[in-house]
C-alpha cells in the first residue's frame, strides 16, 4: 500500500481546526445546528415584532424555500459522496423549460405532451444530466467540481441554443393551479417538498444505495474493497441529484407559472450554502437530510427576516454573509465544545 492512503488528507473541516488534534470529534456535526436555528427564530420573532410567527408568514417562508429546499437535497447527495454538483441549478431550469414548454398548448420548441408525460420528460432530462455527471465521476479521476462546472456550462449553452433566451410563459394551466393550490394552509409545492424530504430520507437511511453512498463518501478505497460498485454508486448519486434537481425545476415552474432560461442563476451557490450551513462536511461520508432542511430553513428565515425588517438590498448581501459566518461559527463552537 502506498503512503498516500495511510496519510490520507484529513477532512476539510478537520483540517481547518488547527491546534485541536483529533480531539472531540466524537459528536457529529449538525446536532448543534438546531440551537442555531432556534436562536435565529427567537431573534426573528423579536426583531419582526411578532410578524414572523404569523401562520401566513410561516407558510410564506416554507413556500419560498421549497425550491431551494429540494435543490439542496440534491446537492446533499453529491456532498455526502464527497463530491459536489455545480450543474444542479442549470439542470433544474432546463427541466422546468422542458416541462413548461411541452405541456403548453402551443409549445415553442418541443412537441406537445400531456402534463404527466411532460413531467416525466423533465425528470428524465434531469436523470440524463445526472447520469452523465455520475459516469464521468465514477470512471475518471476528475474532481466533481470540474466535471459539474463543465456540464453546467454545456447545459446553459444548450438551454439557450434551444430557447434563444425566450421564456416559457404558458405551461399547462393545471400546473399553475397546483402551484397556488393549498391543502389546509400548506401550498402544494410545500407538501411536495415535504414528500421529497421523506423520500430523500428514506433513500439515505433505508436503501442499499444509500448505505453504499455513505461508504463511498467515507472511504472510496475501502468501499471498493468491500465490493461496493463505486462507479455505479456515483452514477446513482448524481442521477438521483439530477432527478431531484428536475423536481426542483417542476416546483419552480408551478410556483412562478413561467420560467426563463436565465432564471435561477443564484441557485448554484445557494444550494451549496444550504448544505454547508446545515453542517454537512464537504469531506464526505456524513450528513443527513435533516441537516439540509436545517440549512435551508436558516437561510430562508434570514432572507424573510431581512425583508420584514426592510433592510436595504445592498445591506442584505452583507447581512446574509454575516449570518452564514455566525451560524456556522456558532455551530462549530457548540458541536465541538469550547476551544482549549
Amino acid at each position: 500500500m502506498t503512503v498516500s492512503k495511510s496519510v490520507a488528507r484529513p477532512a476539510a473541516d478537520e483540517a481547518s481546526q488547527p491546534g485541536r488534534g483529533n480531539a472531540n470529534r466524537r459528536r457529529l456535526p449538525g446536532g448543534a445546528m438546531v440551537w442555531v436555528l432556534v436562536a435565529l427564530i427567537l431573534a426573528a420573532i423579536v426583531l419582526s415584532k411578532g410578524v414572523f410567527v404569523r401562520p401566513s408568514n410561516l407558510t410564506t417562508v416554507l413556500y419560498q424555500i421549497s425550491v431551494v429546499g429540494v435543490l439542496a437535497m440534491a446537492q446533499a447527495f453529491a456532498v455526502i459522496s464527497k463530491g459536489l454538483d455545480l450543474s444542479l441549478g442549470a439542470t433544474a431550469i432546463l427541466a422546468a423549460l422542458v416541462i413548461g414548454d411541452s405541456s403548453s398548448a402551443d409549445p415553442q420548441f418541443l412537441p406537445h405532451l400531456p402534463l404527466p408525460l411532460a413531467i416525466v420528460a423533465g425528470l428524465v432530462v434531469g436523470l440524463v444530466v445526472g447520469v452523465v455527471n455520475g459516469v464521468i465521476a465514477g470512471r475518471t479521476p476528475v474532481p466533481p467540481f470540474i466535471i459539474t462546472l463543465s456540464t453546467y456550462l454545456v447545459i446553459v449553452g444548450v438551454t439557450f441554443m434551444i430557447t434563444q433566451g425566450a421564456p416559457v410563459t404558458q405551461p399547462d394551466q393545471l400546473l399553475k393551479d397546483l402551484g397556488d393550490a393549498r391543502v389546509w394552509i400548506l401550498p402544494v409545492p410545500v407538501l411536495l417538498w415535504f414528500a421529497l424530504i421523506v423520500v430523500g430520507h428514506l433513500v439515505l437511511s433505508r436503501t442499499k444505495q444509500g448505505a453504499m453512498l455513505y461508504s463511498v463518501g467515507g472511504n472510496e478505497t475501502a468501499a471498493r474493497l468491500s465490493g461496493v460498485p463505486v462507479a455505479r454508486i456515483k452514477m446513482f448519486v448524481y442521477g438521483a441529484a439530477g432527478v431531484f434537481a428536475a423536481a426542483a425545476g417542476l416546483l419552480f415552474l408551478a410556483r412562478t407559472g413561467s420560467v426563463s432560461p436565465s432564471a435561477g442563476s443564484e441557485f448554484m451557490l445557494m444550494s451549496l450554502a444550504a448544505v454547508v450551513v446545515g453542517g454537512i462536511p464537504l469531506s464526505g461520508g456524513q450528513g443527513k437530510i435533516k441537516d439540509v432542511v436545517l440549512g435551508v430553513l436558516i437561510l430562508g428565515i434570514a432572507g424573510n427576516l431581512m425583508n420584514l425588517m426592510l433592510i436595504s438590498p445592498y445591506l442584505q448581501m452583507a447581512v446574509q454573509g454575516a449570518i452564514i459566518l455566525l451560524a456556522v461559527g456558532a455551530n462549530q463552537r457548540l458541536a465541538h465544545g469550547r476551544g482549549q
Partner: protein
Amino acid sequence: MTNKILARVEPDAGTGPQTTGTGPRVGHRRSARFLSGLSGRAVEILFLAMVLTGFIVSPNFLTSFNLQGLLSQAAVLGVLAIGQYVVIVAGGFDLSVGAVAAVSSIVVASTLDGMGLLGVLVALGSGAALGLLSGFAVTVGRIPPIVATLGVMGIAQGVAFTISNRGIVITDPTFMKLNSTSFGFVPLLFVIWAVLVAVVFAFLKLTGTGLHFFAVGGNADSARLAGVSVARVQMTAFALSGLLAGAAGVLFAARASSGLPGLGVGWELDTIAAVVIGGVSLYGGSGNLIKAMIGVLTYLMITNVMNLGDVDSYLQSVLKGLLILAAVAVPAVLRRRNHLVGRTS
C-alpha cells in the same frame, strides 16, 4: 510505479526487479513514461494548441492589438488567480476573490481624488483586511473555507455597494498610466502580474513558510505535529489572497478607468477553473504556480480564440465546458493509466 522501484534501489544500481524484465515490459514502461510525461505537460500542450488554433483561425490573433488586450485582461484574472492558487495549495478555497476585487476597485476609485496614489494602498489594505477576515473565520471560527469565504463574499459585496451603489469613473492621470503604459505589445499590467508571480513563486520556493503552505495543504495534522503553525499558514494564505484580490481590483480599475461595486461575479469559478487547468490539485498540497498561470492564459484564450473564430456565443459556453473537462480529464486519465493502474487509492 517506476519511482516505487527506485525507492530501494539507486537508479544507477540497475539490479532491482526491473532487470528481470523482458523486452515487451521495457517497451511498456517507456510508453508509459512517455505518456505520463506528456500528462505532466498537459497545460503547456493545451496552451500551445490554443495559440496554434488562434493563429490558424484568425490572422488577427497575433497582432499586437489583440495580444495587448489579452495580456492585460490576463493580468487582472491572473493576479486574482495567484491568490486562489495560494489558498488552494494551502488546502482551502477562496470564493470571495471577485467580491474583494470589487471592494478594492471601488475603494481606489473613491479615494484617488482625495488621497492620490495613497488610495492604492488603502485599496490593497481593504483587500488584505477582507482576506484576514476569511482567515480569521477559518482559523479561529473553525469554519470550513468554502463557507467562510462564501460569507465574506456576501459581506464584501455589501461593503462595495454601501461605499457606492454605482461605478465611479477615475480621471487621475498618473493612475491611468498604469493601463496606458506598455512595452511593445507587453502592457505594464502584464509586467506587474509577472512581477507578482515571480515574488510569490520565490516566496513559496525559497522560504520555509512557503514550504509550510504545501505541508498544511497536504496534511494539516502532520504539519502541526512537525511544529508548523497551521493557523498562521492559513491566515497568511487568506490574507495574501485578499491582498492579491485587492491588487487585481486596482488593476481592473486602471484597465477600466473606474471602480465598480458589482464587479467580479463568477470570477471565483473562473480562477478555480483556470488554476485547475494549470494542473493544481483541488485537494491541496500540490501544484506549480507557473503552470497555474499558464492555465489562466489558456483559459482566457479559449474565449479569445472563439471570439476571433466567430463562434456563436451559446455554443461558446458548450465548447468551453467541454474544453475544461477535457483539459483536466485527459491528463488525469493518462496519469492513472500509466501510474496507478488499478491501485486501490
